[in-house]
């Protein structure tokens, strides 16, 4: 298949990429943009490792054609930290031991970000609902749930601080 030029907006930057129109967003992110933080565990939409945010909502990049994403704002795990400062979710995953092998972690972080962007104080059931599409083989999910809760509390405190300031 002939490559086509496409324009993608990823982590606040705009890229022009030549890629096959049959290539998924996952392939283009990893192979053309070298954003290999987004992982693949099945390429069939079963495992959630490839989750990215498209206009703020979680999407399985292995089931999404890159060429259809040209008008969208895409966020990958590389876009979470700002100016070399970790997002509270990243800090919480590190502190709680929620990333063991770390391979599923980017997908969980993106699903988690969507949750915390929309729910500042999620219950355990709400956390489970948000992460039900992501598989982890290392942790038994316990530390991941704890990390989401810790991140939520950090983010609430940050909001309170910035509101009072």
């Amino acid at each position, binding site marked *: 298949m002939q490559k086509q030029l496409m324009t993608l907006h990823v982590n606040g930057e705009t890229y022009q990429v030549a890629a096959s129109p049959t290539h998924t967003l996952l392939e283009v992110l990893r192979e053309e943009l070298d954003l290999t933080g987004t992982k693949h565990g099945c390429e069939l939409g079963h495992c959630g490792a490839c989750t990215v945010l498209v206009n703020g909502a979680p999407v399985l990049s292995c089931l999404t054609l890159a060429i259809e994403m040209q008008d969208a704002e895409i966020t990958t795990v590389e876009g979470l930290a700002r100016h070399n400062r970790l997002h509270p979710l990243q800090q919480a995953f*590190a502190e709680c031991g929620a990333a063991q*092998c770390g*391979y599923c972690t980017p997908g969980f972080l993106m699903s988690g970000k969507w949750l915390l962007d929309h729910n500042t104080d999620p219950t355990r059931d709400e956390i489970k609902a948000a992460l039900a599409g992501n598989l982890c083989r290392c942790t038994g*999910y316990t530390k991941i749930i704890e990390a989401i809760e810790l991140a939520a509390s950090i983010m609430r405190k940050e909001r309170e601080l910035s509101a009072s300031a």
Partner: protein
Amino acid sequence: MIIGKSVPKIDSYGKVTGAAKYADDLKLPRMAFGRILRSPHPHARIVRIDTSRARALPGVLDIITGRDLPHKFGIMPTTQDEYPFAVDRVRYVGEPVAAVCAVDEGTADEALDLIDVEYEILPAILSIEEALAREDIKIHEETKRGNIMKEVHLTFGDVEEGFAEADLIREDTFFFEGTTHAPMEEHACVADCGPDGKITLWTSTQTPHYVHREIAKVLQIPLSHLRVIVPPVGGGFGGKCEPFAHDFAACLFALRHGRPIKFGLSREEVFYCHRGRHPVKMILKTGVKQDGTITAVHLQTFLDGGAYASYGLATVYYTGALLTVTYKIPRYKFDGMRLYTNKPPCGPKRGHGSTQPRYAFECQLDKIAEQLGLDPAEYRKRLAVDPYTTTINGLRITSCGLVECVDKVVEASHWRTRRGHLPRGRGLGIAISSYVTGAGKAIYWNDMPHSGVIVKIDRGGGVAVLCGSSDIGQGSDTMLAMIVAEELGVDLSDIRVYTGDTDLTPVDLGSYSSRVTFMAGNAARAAALKLRTLLLEAASDLLGVPADRLTAANHQICCIDDPTKHVSFVEAVQKAESTHGTLSAVGSYTPPKLGGNFKGAGVGISPAYSYTACVAEVQVDPETYDFRVEKLWVAHDCGHALNPTLVAGQIEGSAYMGFGEAVLEEQVFRKGGLHKIPSLLEYKLPTIYDTPEIVALHVEPYDREGPYGAKEAGEGPLNPVIPAIANAIYDAIGARVDSTPITPDKIARALREQQRSSMQQAMMARKLSTVGR
């Protein structure tokens, strides 16, 4: 003091930012791509392979088949029965037949379709029963009888005498279904080679040292011409403990073409690589006195090994060896047999070979406790081995927190007040287990260390730690850093850890058999202690205080008696370097000589054993028998926990995996030998919704030989979870399900059968009473 603190893993930041480069994330200039053609038949003769059409496709650089690598390999030196790519015969669906190297993945894929292979289909063997019955069909010509890959017969004491002494003898048959590791990262590798013929292989493996040896052997190159580097590994669980076809192929292509090549397997291919949990049929006979004391145990195991040996020689011994390390067993007989079948090879999975018989034994003990009217928790405590004793099969037990583990889960689950008082459908079950803290012997027997560590200090105070270990997510790199930081009195941030590089790092045998904390940890400590001695001597010269009155902490070497007397770590380093030259030290660990004097005594020995107890709570629907595991309490004796959060993570992850095997997961095949469910949708990994609440509890007896008293935590906690769930199901609904996975239909069947046999017994009793009259 950092040992015992829950510090974040040193590699966490790479993993949460996406910066960590796993094997498939690597990209090198001029990199080509490889793909593997696999057998569509479970058993067939390869009549002809024609690669000419594929070779003609533009972009195809090369193709290899079995003939290009005609040297057998195998992880165990005495059972090397496998070629990287099939030669003349394929023995399972998914067996590698050929590999393509092309300029891009699409071309490589296209080329696979253009390779013409003519097969002559042979009858296939797909079960233990078929393997035993069909001696006429031989999967390997080399087997002495039928498809028996290995037969083991071991007797310790007079078991017949033991059964004669028994007041109650139970014989039960159990079946444990095969399961697979399913790490989230699919296997991948990149190989590169220059005109000097020196190959570098980056591969997702738990055992770089063994991969190094086997690839050099098959490629017939000196070991010094191959460098194996382990990038971050996205999970292993035992599934990445051997070299695979893609590793061999990548190295050969790189050698031939002098350019890098990458292989990334699909999820379906990972199911074919397998090397997972053996399906095992077990016949278990146990004799006990009226008070429950065990008089004799006889275990027979039949392992469905799949098409090749893998670690199977060790697995078959393991199904017998570790049954003795939990309870006082005065007489023991073990008969094991591993059979070849036409399925992907089985190998080691978390709990290697001990998971299946532990399930059987713990379920049977639950039945015995019930028959004798004993509380299953108290009964287990009464049978528990004592610390610092030796088992009947010659295994040396050191520290043992088994009784305390039982106490912890009993207390946490309110066992005493709740068990027996729950409504029908709700149940509690208990089970215990034990696991090795590192295999006492290397895969190839030798007298060399099992682990080596180099620590070097630069004059600016930076510390580098080098070890051949492979961090697969368990946190072994962090463990190494913590131990060196502890001894040198510096922070984790001062330490850089370099692991899993066969050129740069001293040999560590790998991340298997739960050995790294104990063995590499002891080696790291030995190396760090040598440097600590030099630094204290240097500080002693500077301060005029005897070295034995000094200690290293907080970036200082200071006087214990007068903390105002101190020099900085860097000052001590520079003084020591001025005296001794460049500062580095080597430490190594070799396990003590262990075990009995019989064939097979090398499997099961370990410098220490961990212990675990689990209570499971289940809720079973009394009408549909659909059930939910509500909660798992797991207490684990890992010796002293060096990093409690990471230990808890290992306990929770093990419990989760055991839960999956107990109720959801099965690696099963269709009649024609096709894998039934080679995808993550159909192979049921527990999701966040399925997984029960897991309570991880620590029991920390100090182990005399472990680093700072530590033992293993990565595998042992899996084992008791499965029988605890089975026993809880019985407590809830009265059904004994003696095969895994436990499912509602099996519960229904068990209840029907139990009902039928109790009706038969009642009829028989009525007849007998009529006759008596």
